[in-house]
């Protein structure tokens, strides 16, 4: 008969309480937001900071919300909070051309050394992503090919085992064509996008806005969303500013932040060793503008290191300097912080070199990225941009709030009028349902968008469907007069297959929408999908529990649904 076991009752009640508790912070949005910011700021001050050292305003902000309460909030989408959205495509092909350009001096020097057999060498006009070299003595073509091939380096990829970075082939009787190999192109694209992403992130972080989203999308796109920023144009300017990379001679190291560097020198802090400062000559030997490439690699001993390469003019200056200063440290400075200060081991001609140190593989990869962070490796083309003003966002929130309230009230009244007491049960379930949706949204850190609000309103309308199915079924079962308890039980039992089928099919469409959609549409898919889950839960378990409890207390002889 009508029974729900005790542990099930506790479980249902607990789930509801948990969900509602998770939803509560959203009711005090600004307060909880300030609390979270303050907690984060305090955590940044380091562990175990004595209470007295925390500034009073931070403490006040923190104490606005009890620490034992859940404090996750639903993220507001750009369309509600205001901000800027950019979709950029990285022109990965740019890198092929600059790589080929940079390898020309090296190839030229190599072939020049064999001038006696190869004859004159001449660079032919070609596509930007290849080098065409004509040699004077066609008979020595094989020798020349072999020579150029010695420059090939193995590609570091998971799949490209044994592949080299360049492909050297002969064309006609006297021409050598050098291109990047397919594996190298893939690896290069990967690096280029990764570097661009890193640089964009660095620059946006420098401005210090709240919770920017910077994601890779597809193979060569970057999605950038920054809430609270004035316009997409402003965001483009931030991304466009170049970080400053320089290579400077080291005069001294010190731990004194007030040290006097002397004329022509400057004091620069270390990036990752707090309290360590370097006295550097102000005039850089080479700047990041001369750097064309930096890649994670391994030194002769198999330790992680970073390979880098300069363009022609940078290479000359770098070669001269290293020749004169073997044994001295040399600082790599990024945005006025010393990234690393390796000691020059030998003269570095040809403009390429290797930085060794106590690196892990991850560190060498990061350093390579940082080294290239001076300039974007390739041009960014903006495919999509959206700016939403904060007033419009606020208007949307306000309108959404009012609409949701009215929709909610209308459905509550209508249900109560149609089903009486059972309608009230359904209404309690509906209220819990909305709470659960917000609880789940906060828990998974989902983003609420304007279509997302529409999804919630739609859920308010549709959530009662499962209850309607059950109640209508109970009405029908009552007609065949089996007694109220039996009718209620049969109602739930027989309505179940329709409820499940109907909701699973809707859920399928929500999943497809989530997988295929983007931005606001995705927000809609999330609230719709979660709404289906919670409404099935509340209809099958919560209203049932309410009905059963009521039935046990009253034991009515007849019921009216």
């Amino acid at each position: 008969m009508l029974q729900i076991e005790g542990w099930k009752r506790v479980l249902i009640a607990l789930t509801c309480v948990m969900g509602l508790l998770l939803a509560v912070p959203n009711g005090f949005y600004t307060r909880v937001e300030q609390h979270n910011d303050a907690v984060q700021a305090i955590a940044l001050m380091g562990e175990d900071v004595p209470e007295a050292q925390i500034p009073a305003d931070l403490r006040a902000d923190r104490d606005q919300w009890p620490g034992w309460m859940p404090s996750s909030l639903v993220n507001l989408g750009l369309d509600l909070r205001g901000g800027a959205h950019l979709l950029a495509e990285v022109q990965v092909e740019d890198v092929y051309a600059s790589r080929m350009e940079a390898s020309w001096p090296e190839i030229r020097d190599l072939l020049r050394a064999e001038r006696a057999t190869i004859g004159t060498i001449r660079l032919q006009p070609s596509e930007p992503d290849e080098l065409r070299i004509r040699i004077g003595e066609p008979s020595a073509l094989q020798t020349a090919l072999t020579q150029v091939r010695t420059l090939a380096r193995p590609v570091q990829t998971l799949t490209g085992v044994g592949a080299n970075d360049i492909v050297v082939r002969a064309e006609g009787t006297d021409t050598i064509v050098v291109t990047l190999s397919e594996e190298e192109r893939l690896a290069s694209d990967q690096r280029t996008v990764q570097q661009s992403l890193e640089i964009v992130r660095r620059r946006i972080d420098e401005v210090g806005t709240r919770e920017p989203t910077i994601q890779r999308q597809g193979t060569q796109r970057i999605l950038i969303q920054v809430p609270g920023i004035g316009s997409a144009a402003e965001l483009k300017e931030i991304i466009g500013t170049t970080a400053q990379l320089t290579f400077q001679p080291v005069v001294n190291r010190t731990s004194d932040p007030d040290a006097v560097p002397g004329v022509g020198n400057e004091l620069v802090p270390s990036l990752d060793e707090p309290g360590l400062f370097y006295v550097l000559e102000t005039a850089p030997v080479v700047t990041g503008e001369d750097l064309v490439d930096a890649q994670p690699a391994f030194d002769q001993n198999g330790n992680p290191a970073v390979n880098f390469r300069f363009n022609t003019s940078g290479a000359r200056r770098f070669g001269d300097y290293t020749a004169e200063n073997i044994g001295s440290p040399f600082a790599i400075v990024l945005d006025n912080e010393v990234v690393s200060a390796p000691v020059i081991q030998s003269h570095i001609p040809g403009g390429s070199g290797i930085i060794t140190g106590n690196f892990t593989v991850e560190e060498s990869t990061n350093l390579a990225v940082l080294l290239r962070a001076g300039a974007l490796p390739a041009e960014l083309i903006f495919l999509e941009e959206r700016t939403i003003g904060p007033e419009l966002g606020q208007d949307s929130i306000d309108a959404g709030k009012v609409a949701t309230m009215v929709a909610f009230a209308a459905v509550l009244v209508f249900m109560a009028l149609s089903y009486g007491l059972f309608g009230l049960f359904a209404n309690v379930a509906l209220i819990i349902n909305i709470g659960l949706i917000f609880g789940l949204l906060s828990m998974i850190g989902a983003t609420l968008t304007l279509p997302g609000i529409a999804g919630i309103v739609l859920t308010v309308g549709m959530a009662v469907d499962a209850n309607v199915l059950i109640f209508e079924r109970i009405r029908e079962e009552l007609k065949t007069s089996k007694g109220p308890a039996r009718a209620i039980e049969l109602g739930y039992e027989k309505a179940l297959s329709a409820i499940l089928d109907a909701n699973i099919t809707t859920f399928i469409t929500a999943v497809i929408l989530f997988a295929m959609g983007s931005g606001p549409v995705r927000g809609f898919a999330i609230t719709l999908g979660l709404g289906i889950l919670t409404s099935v839960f509340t209809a099958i378990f919560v209203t049932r529990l309410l009905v059963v409890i009521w039935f046990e207390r009253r034991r009515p002889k007849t019921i009216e649904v």
Partner: protein
Amino acid sequence: MRLKLVKQNTSFDFFSRWKLWLGISALMMVVGFASFAIQGLNFGIDFRGGTTVRTESTQPVDIGIYRDAMAVLELGDISITEVFDPTFDDDQNVAMIRIQAQEGQEAVTPETLRAVQAALSAAVPDIKFVSTESVGPKVSGELIQTAAIAVVLAIAAVLVYIWLRFEWQFALGAVAALVHDVILTIGVFSELQIKFDLAIIAALLTIVGYSLNDTVVVFDRVRENLRKYKKKPLNEVLNVSINETLSRTVMTSVTTLLALISLYVLGGDVIRGFVFAMIWGVIVGTYSSVFVASTILLWLGVKRDWSKKDPNAGGQYANIDA
């Protein structure tokens, strides 16, 4: 006292004029399709590329002034519409300006945008630019493709699910109803030239979900009744099933419409098109689950004996004239 939208024990005959209903649906689909083919949809920038700027000012919007201010910039096709909404304040005058995608550009360049803003600010001193959206032709092409794939995929997934849970005749009936709803919705958007953007695709998929929800509930009852009344002709079984679920169909449609209408009136103009699509979809979806899905099922016939495997599954056709 109870509010009853549908009185108990209805026995409407939904199939006495089934040819008429199917005819009306077919005619409306043809009209919708023709409208789509002739005028086409009023695609938003999501799907055709370009830039929209939403402006706000305390002065009444004079489209002529806006147009003249921007004419010197030679940006090609520009459309300016004033936006009205009950949620606006009295001195809140909103306009939407749409600029076509510029030759050789993806998203709008900061220079173009600055020029537009400067020109408008000169003409209307207190103008504010509350939102700007720009989509390059490359992305808009992809978005259209993804959207079409999403709709087709949703319909296909549903076809498979219903086929697994019911029989293929049910699946075809449900999908016919879905296609009917999607075409009618697209038709209404092309006929009224309402802006068709990414959010409308979300609405279309929701309509697919909702209409299906309705259809499945009716079909679930049909399946149950087919087992219960083994000897009744199919059209009577269908009729009984629809009558039994009618109260629920109407109740759910009404609660959903109540919620949607409040959103339509109070939710602001930004999502009005989206909500309109859903309201339309709920109405059409409710109609189609009764008059399209079930009629197609009647027409295709269905295996009657669910207790044991039928050697000629799908081979029996119901006598429609019975």
